[in-house]
């Protein structure tokens, strides 16, 4: 902190006044010096654990067998690839995350459009709509499990009964849908917030001009509002994907990884804390990083490119 106080221009006046180039070089040097502590901290905090993970992934180490620990080369990776659970988990992650993100974004768009008009009690409605995002994930999963989706006393089956439909054993019969429901419920407000900000940043003059030109509500939305929202949709999808990739609580509390809900984070948890296989879990972790980097750099870029060629140029 003290470093911040000494800027080069406040040096003793006895010194020769530096030329322009010297002063710029010094400024750069000081800026770099100021950057170092933060950079070093983030390297220590992010890269050392990663290197350690790689180290552990090369170890044969079950925590309940302390005597049998040692270097095992790439054996852990071989068993990760040979065992089918990595690929099926990857599929489950893509399915659960993808569906929830798409559903959250679509619903978020709907609610954002509804909340964008002024009506009495808009502030209250907005606060209520945001609430699910503020509930702790574990608490939300418990509420869904006990109050809403309980087979005998839950509200969902009560509602189905009102319209004459048979009750559903949610976690047993429809585990994937159950998880997607909870996640969509929780992340719709998040998408809604971002899209609402986008809607409110829209230029009213353009909308007025469209109305003057005789465009209807649907045409205005499709040709003017949607292209304007594109960046906001991208951000919402990106951030929601990052958060949902790590989702754990509803799976642990409700379906326990059954019926196609064993996502990568739950698989990692199981290998590390149920199997107590430190080496194998670390190998799964490293594989996850690799696959995610590939997916992120190839798939997402392509996806966004599709968006931008189909959309209207900014």
């Amino acid at each position: 902190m003290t470093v911040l106080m000494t800027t080069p221009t406040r040096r003793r006046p006895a010194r020769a006044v530096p030329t322009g180039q010297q002063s710029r070089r010094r400024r750069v040097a000081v800026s770099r010096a100021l950057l170092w502590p933060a950079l070093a901290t983030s390297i220590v905090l992010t890269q050392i654990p990663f290197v350690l993970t790689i180290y552990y992934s090369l170890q044969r180490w079950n925590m309940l067998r302390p005597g049998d620990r040692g270097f095992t080369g790439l054996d852990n990776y071989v068993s990760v690839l040979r065992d089918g659970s990595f690929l099926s988990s990857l599929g489950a992650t893509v399915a659960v995350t993808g569906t929830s993100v798409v559903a959250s974004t679509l619903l978020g768009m709907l609610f954002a459009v509804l909340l964008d008009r002024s009506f009495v009690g808009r502030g209250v409605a907005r606060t209520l709509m945001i609430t699910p995002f503020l509930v702790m994930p574990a608490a939300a999963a418990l509420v869904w499990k006990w109050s809403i989706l309980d087979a005998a006393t839950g509200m969902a089956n009560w509602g189905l009964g009102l319209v004459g439909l048979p009750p559903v054993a949610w976690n047993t019969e429809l585990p994937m849908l159950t998880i997607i429901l909870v996640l969509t419920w929780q992340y719709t407000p998040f998408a809604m917030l971002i899209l609402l900000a986008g809607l409110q940043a829209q230029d009213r003059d353009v909308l007025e001009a469209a109305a003057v030109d005789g465009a209807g509500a649907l045409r205005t939305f499709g040709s003017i509002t949607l292209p304007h929202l594109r960046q906001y949709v991208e951000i919402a999808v990106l951030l929601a994907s990052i958060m949902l990739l790590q989702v754990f609580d509803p799976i642990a509390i409700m379906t326990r990884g059954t019926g196609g809900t064993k996502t990568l984070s739950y698989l990692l948890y199981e290998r590390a804390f149920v199997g107590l296989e430190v080496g194998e879990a670390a190998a799964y972790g490293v594989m996850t990083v690799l696959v995610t980097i590939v997916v992120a750099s190839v798939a997402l870029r392509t996806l966004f490119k599709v968006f931008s060629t189909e959309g209207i140029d900014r």
Partner: protein
Amino acid sequence: MMLTRTARRQAAPAGLAAAALALALTACAGAGGGGDGGSAGQGGGPVELTLATVNNPQMKDMEELKSAFEEEHPDITVNFIQMEENDLRDAVTKDVATDGGQYDIVTVGSYEVPIWAQNGWLTDLTGDLGSDADYDVDDLFEPVKDALTVDDSLYAVPFYGESSMLMYNKELLDAAGVTMPEHPTWQEVADIAREVDSDDVDGICLRGKPGWGEVFAPLTTVVNTFGGSWYDAEWNAQVDQPEFAEAVQFYVDLVEDAGEADPVSTGFTECLNNVSQGRSAMWVDATVAAGLLEDPESSQVAGKMGYAHAPVVETEESGWLWSWNLAIPETTQNRDAAVEFVKWATSKEYHQLVGTELGWSRVPPGARNSTYEIPEYEEAAASFAPITRDIMLAVNPEQPGVAPQSWTGIQYVTIPEFQDLGNQVSQDLADVFAGRSELAPVLERAQDLAQEAGDAQK
């Protein structure tokens, strides 16, 4: 607010990579950990003991009463760290396996005691307990003690223990005109369950929630009594044998015909809920549940319940055996003080103290014979104490099934790999409960997994 176009492009992979990295780190968070030795040295000076325990009601009672111990031993203070069962297992495994030495006393389940003892993680308590005539180590329930003994050495002391039994709602069974024998067979129980089952009431509640300690606690006892087993005496996996399949098929069919609607959600707590609200007529589960069902404050069926031995097919008994035990890790710096506390918390005097201070129904059950001779306890737990004691003494952890086995334990296999094995098989079983898969392929995969774990023991 918006990022520039290029920055955004780069932010996407970087952000996702960071998220993935976070995932990876969670995986190895278990590897670090550890602490810096005990607090005070041996002999002289005040000693501070750290006790890591599950947050069960009986353990909370122990914390409430610890001041009585501290008054008797002014130079010892005891700090409790309460955790969920899974958290405790992780925390203690990590601490002990990495020589952390954070804990002077730990509560360990009966599944882990032999494994940890063989790893050299627990101190041998045989001498400390046997030399003290007042402590009366022979008063501890024999089957429980057997499960905690490795090569004739006792590595932990039971704080409380349980078996499993059949609990049934007498009103619902009477209404259907059926009576329950004291030693029912599974076939009788299944018939009664299907008879009683109606739109409003489930015939029976049986755990279906994935996890080696969830569905496979009752299910392994069913497998045992059907004549099946996870392994034979030479560690050959027996999951592909017809008895194993028959038992699992029986269990799944019974749940589907007359059991709870949502088996994958249903564990101990959910069944307790169903039975105590009168929505399930029968339940096979831990004996400690009886105390909760008979509590009029939380249960609508208090006084209406009947109890019978766990149903059997080919064996005499099929109750399981579980105990929460106090043990002292090898890494402690305060062994003498820790022994003092362990003896106090598992003594006859402690049971008297709980009875007089907190109420007789809260005395830790299933640990000592003498507990069942305390008149006040017999009165407070009249409906289930005698049968609990009978079952606890009758079960045989050395050979719970038809064939001999090479481990001690009933509803689990005492090898490190079992929690992983049980967990994976129970997840596949969820597909069978849901009708997404047949039983045969699930058991085929289970056989391979089991054989892999069995080979590690040979």
